[in-house]
């Protein structure tokens, strides 16, 4: 199709604006990346660092020697893996059962829907977690968020879309519901499990509130809580908990940015997979009914 002159101008203006918007979204990451690898001198002199002239690794050296930071990273990896497994097990098994004409399906669905619309308050939930003895336990970060009601409903919708003949023929062959679920339905649901697994995993990795509420002792802080102390509250000595660091400390700014970046890396690693799967996940969400 031929483009008129004004059409071309429009294209150029539009593309330029979009490039600027993209830069606006990307620039903070580039800046944090560059500063974390810069010397203090360069950081002080330059206004807009996006590429260090001279690569300095002091900040990374420092945080990787810090017990507090490394501990929080490994703790969070552990929570993320264990939590996501629990999420997927609970959500898929309940979602599948509710996609079959099981006894009591209607009332249970109403129960789930009501929980979605009327979330229990913060304080009573906190008291229940406390009374069940989960404070300072890794399970406090996992059990209270074992199922997202919304994900459950979308996953049930996905199971409903599996052709009934598949299940029926398995029933003919004498398979039990458990066998059908484990051997037929789950393998067929890999895309959905991947999409929800990634969403749940990102949720665990990014969870700050749970750590703030339920983890009282600094040794059990998830990485987001440590980051908040370090960057937002500006308590650079957070990293020194239980570590005697005799060497000279690199400037706090570069340490903060190195820590931000290290905490972002896992997301950046799964991001390509997220991108591949989220479209499916979002579209699944769009066809609920």
């Amino acid at each position: 199709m031929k483009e008129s002159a004004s059409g071309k101008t429009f294209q150029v203006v539009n593309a330029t604006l979009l490039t600027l918007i993209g830069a606006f979204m990307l620039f903070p990451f580039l800046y944090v990346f560059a500063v974390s690898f810069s010397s203090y001198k360069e950081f002080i002199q330059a206004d807009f660092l996006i590429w260090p002239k001279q690569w300095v690794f002091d900040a990374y050296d420092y945080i990787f020697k810090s017990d507090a930071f490394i501990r929080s990273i490994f703790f969070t990896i552990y929570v993320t893996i264990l939590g996501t497994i629990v999420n997927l097990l609970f959500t898929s098994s309940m979602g599948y059962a509710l996609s079959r004409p099981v006894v009591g399906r209607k009332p249970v669905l109403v129960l789930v829907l009501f929980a979605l619309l009327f979330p229990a308050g913060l304080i009573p939930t906190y008291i229940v977690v406390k009374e069940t003895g989960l404070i300072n336990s890794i399970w406090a970060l996992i059990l209270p968020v074992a199922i997202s009601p919304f994900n459950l409903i979308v996953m049930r919708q996905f199971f409903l879309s599996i052709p009934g003949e598949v299940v029926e023929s398995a029933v003919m062959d004498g398979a039990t519901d458990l066998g059908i679920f484990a051997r037929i339905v789950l393998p067929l649901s890999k895309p959905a499990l991947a999409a929800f697994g990634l969403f749940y995993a990102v949720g665990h990795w990014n969870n700050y509130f749970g750590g703030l509420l339920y983890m009282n002792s600094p040794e059990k802080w998830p990485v987001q809580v440590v980051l908040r102390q370090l960057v937002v509250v500006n308590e650079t000595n957070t990293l020194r908990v239980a570590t005697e660091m005799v060497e000279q400390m690199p400037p706090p700014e570069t340490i903060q940015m190195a820590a931000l970046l290290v905490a972002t890396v896992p997301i950046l690693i799964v991001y390509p997979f997220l991108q591949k799967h989220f479209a499916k996940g979002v579209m699944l969400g769009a066809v609920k009914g």
Partner: protein
Amino acid sequence: MQFWLKRLYRDRFLILLMLPGLAYFLIYKYLPLVGSVIAFQDFSPFLGFLESPWVGMKHFAVIFEDYEIVQVLWNTLNISFLQIAFAFPAPIILAIMLNELRSNGWFKGILQSIVYLPHFMSWVIVVGICVIFLRGSGVINSFLGTYFGIDPIPFLSDPAFFKPLIVLQVIWKEAGWGTVIFLAALAGVDPQLYEAAVMDGAGRFRKIWHITLPALRSTIVILLILRLGTVLDTGFEQIFLMLNPFVMEQGNVLDTYVYFKGIVQSDYSFATAVGLFKGVVGFGLVWGANRLAKRFGQDGVY
């Protein structure tokens, strides 16, 4: 009776599959709902909610007399409406711009990857980056100082900047992600409509006005109605992370207020009453919003 026993036996494995999830809902969703009765007590953790004295509507009565809560409620609604006015249209505009981008598959692809990315960052990271940029010694202030000779502006502790910053952060984090649903709606538009419009002599903006926007109208209306149903929700993490003593009066919202009262000051009953108040009003709003959305001929959320 026999019929039911038979069905229970037939569905025994499905019931087994349902049990963990059911237990989850009962313990972590419904037990706290039942526990909300402490809003009508002077709850003491030592007595538990069976022994704590009942005080009726005492705590609810305070809600409407307390100056601080009026302020908190105002902040909540204010921030929410600012979000609706500024953060809500952002993805619509961005989606239209992306949609207008001609060919250039790779350019569009990279751009989309970039604008989706912030959505997956935690609020700690977003607020952390914001703090790094805006603090006294941050990039923005040193830039203003070097080139314009402006003294450092206390962006983070000046109450005037609090609400704009909250809205700006939401736009930065979620505008790109928000385009997904609008782009999906636009993918379904028949290209012949655009061709016909060109035949009729329509320019770029006429096409956007008469074809693109009407194609998005129902999605926009539904999302707007549903958004209005959650005006009392401002999210806890972002606002909590941005709060400091200087901006408390402008920034304290219902969610953070309940946290400070309940967890920090251990005023369980009163904080629960405020939470319950928010829950009941929120439930009414969401329920009403969903009915409205359905009336507009869409599925609604459930």
